[in-house]
């Protein structure tokens, strides 16, 4: 097991290197320069000044030299400083990750808590009214555009009924609150975003769970369990569910990159200062160090997520040995 993980980690190194090369090249090939914001829109800036700024950022060097510089710093886990506000990239990302991660984690837990039971109970009553109703329900959630639902809910819950705050993650008076009030305040801000994103994601897990469960319930060992005289509850929630849950472990491992990636649309609607918006803003400003930082950290987490999926699958399925 340890040896397997070690070997896999070694194998990730060249993969990650390849990813950084391609990402670096693509970003620099894209039209526009980081200096555009400061120079293009200002007719007074001379040619000389432009070159000076480019030199300051190291943008006048050949691309491979720039990459080598970036890589040297990356090996020390230094992602450089932002072109926009000169703050360290790692710090900018560090501020945003907990917010996005927190929201997405809450949403995925909610999805599991609701989606798994929906899937299981639909499968048990396959083809019945409940099953068909739930199918429609989760697909409505899947089909409704996030931004539309968000706006409707913000209008109803936030504006008309005045029950919940509609934007940001903190109230203006946040700093004056005690610890308990702070927690409540953040939680109140997160209810709408988490609910909306969970509703949209329900279809995936519940349908997946349903099809796993339908498949498992047709297996011979379910007949064996019934033939033993076990209670129907034990047949379904012990013998069937354990088998049907196995593939969900993989799904969870694979959802790791989504957890930190965030969503531009979503975070913009609710004014959440998360990773999605950071990435969008830095792309718009051609803030190369931040873009590279976000993408590379995302890539690393994706690769680790895959590894985690494989390892945890082996942990829950006795047939798989690493």
């Amino acid at each position: 097991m340890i040896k397997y993980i070690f070997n896999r980690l070694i194998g990730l190194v060249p993969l990650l290197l390849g990813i950084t090369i391609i990402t670096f090249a693509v970003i620099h090939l894209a039209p526009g320069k980081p200096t555009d914001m400061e120079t293009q829109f200002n007719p007074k800036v001379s040619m000389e000044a432009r070159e000076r700024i480019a030199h300051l950022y190291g943008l006048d060097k050949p691309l491979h030299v720039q990459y080598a510089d970036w890589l040297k710093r990356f090996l020390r886990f230094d992602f450089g400083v932002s072109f926009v506000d000169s703050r360290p990239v790692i710090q900018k990302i560090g501020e945003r990750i907990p917010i996005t991660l927190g929201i997405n984690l809450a949403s995925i837990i909610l999805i599991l808590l609701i989606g798994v039971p929906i899937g299981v109970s639909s499968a048990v009553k396959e083809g019945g009214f409940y099953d068909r109703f739930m199918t429609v329900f989760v697909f409505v959630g899947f089909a409704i555009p996030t931004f539309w639902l968000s706006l409707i809910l913000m209008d109803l819950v936030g504006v008309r009924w005045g029950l919940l705050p509609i934007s940001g993650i903190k109230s203006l008076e946040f700093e004056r609150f005690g610890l308990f009030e702070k927690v409540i305040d953040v939680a109140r801000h997160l209810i709408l975003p988490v609910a909306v994103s969970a509703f949209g994601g329900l279809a995936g897990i519940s349908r997946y769970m349903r099809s796993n469960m339908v498949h498992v319930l047709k297996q011979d060992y379910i007949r064996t369990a019934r033939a033993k005289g076990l209670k129907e509850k034990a047949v379904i929630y012990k013998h069937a569910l354990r088998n049907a849950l196995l593939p969900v472990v993989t799904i969870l491992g694979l959802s790791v990159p989504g957890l930190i990636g965030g969503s531009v649309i979503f975070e913009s609607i609710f004014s959440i200062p998360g990773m999605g918006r950071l990435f969008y803003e830095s792309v718009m400003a051609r803030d190369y160090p931040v873009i590279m930082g976000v993408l590379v950290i995302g890539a690393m987490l994706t690769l680790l997520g895959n590894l985690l999926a494989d390892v945890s699958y082996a942990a829950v399925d006795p047939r798989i040995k690493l």
Partner: protein
Amino acid sequence: MLLEIRDLKVGYKVDGMLTEVVRGVDLEIRKGECVGLVGESGCGKTTVGLAITRLIPERKGKIISGRVLLEGRDLFGLDDEALRAVRGKRISYVFQEPFSSLNPVFTIYEQIKESLPEKKATDRAISEILKAVGLDEIAGRKKVYPHELSGGMQQRVMIAMAIASRPELLVLDEPTTALDVTVQKQILDLIMELKNKMDLSILFISHDLNMIFRAADRINVMYAGRIAEQGPKKDMVSKPLHPYTRGLIESIPCIGHRKKAFDAIEGRTPLFSDLPEGCKFHPRCRFRVEACMKEEPGLEQVSSGHTARCIRAKELLLNGAGKGR
């Protein structure tokens, strides 16, 4: 009489329509007896076995009518709770595919434990059951999963689960079909040994007439959802009454028996959705006459305890027709 099946009719749902696949089966199992149920694939024999404790999944099929009496008590009249007290406790099953019949994510230990009543499910009891089915090497080991065992050992585990709570009736549904020939014999020997030791009654379902001849005291031959012939083993071997039984016996290949080709029954089993008029076997029968195509004959007693569903049974027996061997 331990178990009586009376006029059992079972249908499967195909495209929303209920197609009858067990079309009125009567079968009896006495205490300590091994009764064979033999027939080609798709004749309904597995369905009969499952129907005894209503194990046919609701979405797939339905018991249309009939009664199953366990020592006189109708199992179809029981509620789910009472039926569960019969399943696995008084009537146990061993299925065809041991690998897929064992839950892959639970240990052998856990799966046998489930078959025992909670109070009796001690480590020692489980070890003893494993030893009883010849699995001494994994007795006392708790972390053994089904995939770590060979097919023969898996089937021994299935048998261990079936006998764990000392049932009266064991329903064996093709217990040896998925196994190697050498392993088949070991499993059959084990079953016979346990039968004698534990005074078990057995319903032995198989398409393999050789197996049935070795194991059973009485044999039921099933064709197209009905019993075609029923009788004691020695009568069935020496003087089969139904042309179908005869065909089955003649199609057993024999080593050392020099024949160009062994006789197979011509044609194939009819579809339940498209059964022929009259005797369901007549399109494949060498001895058919005009009358066979008109009406399906009933089960007629030909000699004591030996019945057949064929209008020419007596006549053919007297002529000794078709005994080509």
